[in-house]
C-alpha cells in the first residue's frame, strides 16, 4: 500500500511569496492576491520530486507535505 501524501499550506505562515506556484503549477495556483490555492489531490511518484522542491523553496516553510492520514479537516 503506497503512502499517499498531500500538500497543505499553513495560512498563518504563508506570506504570498508564490514560489510554490512557480515550481508546482500542477497543484498550486495563485489567487487574485498572490496567495496559493493548493489542490489537495494526493501527490503521485511523478510529482514527488517537484513537490519536495516546492516545499523546500518556500521562504517561510509554510508549504508542507503530509501523509494523507494525518491531514486534519
Amino acid at each position, binding site marked *: 500500500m503506497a503512502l499517499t501524501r498531500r500538500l497543505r499550506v499553513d495560512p498563518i505562515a504563508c506570506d504570498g511569496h508564490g*514560489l510554490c506556484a512557480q*515550481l508546482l503549477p500542477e497543484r498550486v495556483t495563485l*489567487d487574485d492576491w498572490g496567495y496559493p490555492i493548493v489542490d489537495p489531490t494526493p501527490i503521485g511518484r511523478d510529482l514527488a520530486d517537484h513537490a519536495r522542491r516546492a*516545499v523546500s*523553496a518556500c*521562504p517561510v*516553510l509554510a508549504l508542507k507535505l503530509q501523509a494523507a492520514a494525518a491531514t486534519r479537516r
Partner: protein
Amino acid sequence: MSATLASTRALWYLTRGSGAATLVLLTATVVLGITNSARWASPHWPRFVTERLHRNLSLLVLVFLALHVATTVVDGYVPIRWLDAVVPFGSSYRPLWLGLGAVALDLLLAVLVTSLLRARLGHRAWRAVHWLAYACWPVALVHGLGTGSDAGRAWMLAVDAVAAAAVLAAVWWRLGAAPSVPVAAVAPHPGEVARHGHGR
C-alpha cells in the same frame, strides 16, 4: 613537514586565488539573498531562480573556502594550524586578521548548517541565525584587506571595491525601494493574477 619552494608557491597562489573567489561568490550570494528578501522578480527571472542560485552559490562558497583554508594550513610557510581556521585570534601569525577569517568561517558555517536543517529548526530559529550573514560578509572582506597577500594590488582592490559597491547598493535598494506597506493589486479581470508587493 617541508615542501619544496615550487609547491609552496603553488599552494600560496591557490590560497590567494581561492580566497578571492570565495569573496566574489560570497558577495554574489549575499546580493541574491537580498534580492530574494526584497521579493524582486521579472518574467524572465522568477523568484525560484534567485532562491536556487542563492542556495547553490552558497555551497560553492563552501567549496572554495575549504580550498582556501586547506591550502593555507598545508602550506607550511607560515605557522597556521587547522584549529586557527575555526578558533579565532589564537594563531601566532597575524592573530587579528586571521582571526577575522575564522570568525567569518564560523558565521558561514552557522548559516549553512541551520539552512540545511531548516525544516527541522522551523522558520523563526532559522531566520534568526541567517541574519548573521550580514555580519559574515563584511568580516570576510576586512579579513582579506588585512591579511590578503594581494591586498595592496590594483586588481584585488578593484575586486574589493566592486564587491563592496554591490552589497552596499543592494542593501540601499532593499531599504529604500521596496514598499513599506502591504500592497494588493486587485485583479481587473477575472483570470488575471495580480502582482502584489510587500514591504518587510
